[in-house]
């Protein structure tokens, strides 16, 4: 039970090990605090949708499961959107379009498909919580690095801004790609270069469209 929970935080960290949900990871991590907001919103949706899908797993017919999952997820995203709009205006402004886009975050659909549709409610909730915390931790780490180097602050508090000229590039899009690449390299290195096998189509193990994706790549010609 505990393993289910910690799995998402370290061994199968959705962002750094499975490489899912890359869009929000790159887009909103310009500051550490944004990572907290996005992480909590996504965790809420993840836990609720995992619980609902797990409860309905015997009712939803196999053929229409993906549309059904998407509808359930979209419902919870709408709830979170309304909550954020009502109680956390500033988060709503910083996350902007990425808040409704949680619907298409592959972490959530991926966990529904890989875990919640096959397991009882309690493990599914724990899995959702673990994955959510893992996602939040990765977002905050990345946000902190980019904020510290790019703006010289941390959680909005000035750290090095006075003494060292901040490298604005790090909070611009190229910095996002660069820091993300370095973090994944670090995660690979720390886990003993565990990724021996080539990322044919990266992080695809947990992605619901993995099969089609690799077919699309393979159908392209040689290799």
């Amino acid at each position, binding site marked *: 039970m505990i393993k289910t929970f910690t799995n998402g935080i370290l061994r199968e960290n959705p962002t750094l090990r499975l490489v899912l949900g890359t869009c929000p990871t*790159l887009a909103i991590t310009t500051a550490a605090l944004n990572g907290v907001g996005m992480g909590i919103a996504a965790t809420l949706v993840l836990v609720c949708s995992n619980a609902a899908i797990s409860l309905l797993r015997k009712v939803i017919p196999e053929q229409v499961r993906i549309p059904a999952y*998407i509808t359930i997820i979209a419902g919870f995203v*709408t709830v979170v959107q309304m909550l954020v709009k009502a109680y956390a205006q500033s988060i709503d402004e910083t996350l902007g379009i990425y808040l409704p886009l949680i619907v298409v975050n592959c972490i959530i659909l991926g966990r529904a498909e890989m875990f919640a549709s096959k397991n009882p409610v309690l493990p599914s909730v724990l899995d959702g919580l673990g994955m959510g915390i893992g996602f939040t931790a990765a977002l905050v780490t990345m946000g902190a690095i980019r904020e510290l180097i790019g703006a010289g602050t941390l959680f909005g508090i000035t750290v090095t801004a006075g003494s060292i000229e901040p490298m604005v590039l790090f909070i611009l899009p190229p910095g996002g790609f660069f820091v993300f690449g370095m973090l*994944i390299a670090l995660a690979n290195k720390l886990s003993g270069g565990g990724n021996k096998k080539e990322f044919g*189509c*990266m992080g695809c193990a947990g992605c619901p469209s993995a099969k089609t994706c690799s077919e699309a790549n393979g159908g392209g010609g040689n290799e």
Partner: protein
Amino acid sequence: MSNILAILVSAILSDNYVLAKFLGICPFLGVSKKLDSAVGMSVAVTFVMLIATAATWPIQMYLLNPNGLDYLQTIVFILVIASLVQLVETFLKKFIPPLHKALGIYLPLITTNCAVLGVAILNVEEYPDNFLAALVNSLGAGMGFLLAMVIFAGIRSKVERANVPDFLKGLPVTLVSAAITSLAFMGFQGMGG
């Protein structure tokens, strides 16, 4: 007219959906290994973006907004896009098999592509009173996606032959190349207003 042109140029270059707005990163990293699959994917994405905007913009303006149902936006949009993609796939399979053979494989991937939903949502937010501008923006977003994919597929084929340190192999080095590509696109900032 110049306004429409400005929207098109900025959607393709300075506000590139992939490299500046971070929408559609999954296919950008996942399907950019080969040039022909990159082109196929981008054409399919452009097509779906256009029809998605053509469908969701009127729904938002004439159905959701007048009835005070705009909070249903997320659910309605994703369902409309998912069923449209399914419909297009069935239609192509039945009536234009060669096109289905070329694009069919990419269509299921597009449902969960955040660029498509992102364009649909941004269009109703940014161009609530100009349907044409919304359509042009979708076209530009798709073309920008195509441009980024083609350039990146070329860069990746070179990187693949380079000798990179072990722990950087695969995704990390791909992301670093993406950073440099994105840096190049920043040069367009300020163009097209």
